[in-house]
């Protein structure tokens, strides 16, 4: 694939998984940008051995901030398409083609991955998480006016012009809703594409806990009040 497609991988203390995630991605022929979000393990030194762009936050800021740093960096290098991809190995590089396709063909500005478009993908999501995600879908729909089938899926693709318009201001996990708000505000065309998820004990342990939903709601609320 094209070097002007940039895969942005935010990584915070991902030493255990980052190498296999990157090795899976290098096969796709895209450019890879890993943003080490101030990890305290040896994530940063592992990145030395892989062919990629590595950017490191001197201090930990949060996943939303890491994504924005990766996007700013990729735009400076002339990225035509930017893909968000989680570091913990829960996404599949095979889905990259289908997620960038609507952008390359000019049908959409933003493509959002969904675990709920194919029966087989949905079956992998544990029931308790399914319920939580559907509540998040409802919440996002009411808040942003964008109704999707999935929420907080870290797999997305943005066209260059969409990435230039969207500026993630929520440094932590509320960035997923922040992106939707900005899709709406800039009237960007969006579609969903099915993505396969692989939950390992590692990715479930690293991923967000259910009670973090409360933090996200509060962050969004505060974000609206204080500019």
């Amino acid at each position, binding site marked *: 694939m094209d070097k002007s497609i940039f895969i942005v991988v935010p990584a915070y203390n991902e030493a255990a998984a980052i190498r296999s995630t990157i090795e899976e991605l290098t096969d796709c022929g895209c450019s890879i940008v890993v943003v080490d979000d101030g990890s305290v393990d040896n994530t940063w030194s592992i990145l030395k051995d892989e062919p990629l762009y590595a950017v490191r936050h001197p201090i930990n800021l949060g996943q939303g901030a890491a994504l924005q740093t990766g996007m700013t960096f990729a735009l400076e290098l002339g990225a035509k398409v930017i893909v968000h991809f989680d570091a913990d190995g829960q996404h599949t590089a095979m889905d990259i083609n289908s997620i960038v396709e609507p952008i390359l063909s000019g049908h959409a500005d933003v493509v959002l991955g969904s675990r709920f478009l194919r029966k087989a993908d949905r079956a992998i999501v544990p029931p308790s998480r399914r319920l939580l995600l559907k509540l998040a879908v409802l919440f996002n729909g009411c808040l942003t006016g964008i109704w999707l089938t999935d929420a907080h899926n870290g797999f997305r693709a943005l066209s260059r012009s969409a990435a230039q318009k969207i500026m993630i201001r929520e440094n932590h996990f509320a960035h997923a809703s922040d992106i939707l708000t900005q899709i709406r505000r800039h009237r960007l065309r969006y579609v969903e594409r099915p993505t396969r998820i692989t939950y390992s004990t590692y990715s479930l342990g690293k991923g967000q806990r259910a009670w973090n939903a409360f933090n996200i709601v509060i962050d969004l609320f505060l974000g609206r009040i*204080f500019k």
Partner: protein
Amino acid sequence: MTPIQIILVVLLVIGAALYFSKLRSLLLDRLLVVALIGLAIAMIVKPGLTTRVANWVGVGRGVDLIFYLTLVGLSFVLLILYSEVRTLQSRLTELTRAVAIANSRNTHDSGHRVEEERTMEGNV
């Protein structure tokens, strides 16, 4: 004057002096501080004043009225400080981002373990 009156007035005067020597701010800000300090001193010297005002607005004791007003005032201070913290956070994010991008590493053509710091190929 009772000892507590003297103590409070002295503390207020010191607070005002500190404010004007350490913090610089707008004229309006200063006028507000002078007005508040003047009001505070008046209430300390003539304690009956607060009770009379409190009775006008339906509060039993002057102390209670001041307590309520203080709570409201402190809430505002908290909000102002919090919004200041958010501003600082977003500035820190911008700074961190700029530092991170300036120190980016490109390991594409360098094979294993050869490091190239600052390898942005200009702005394409």
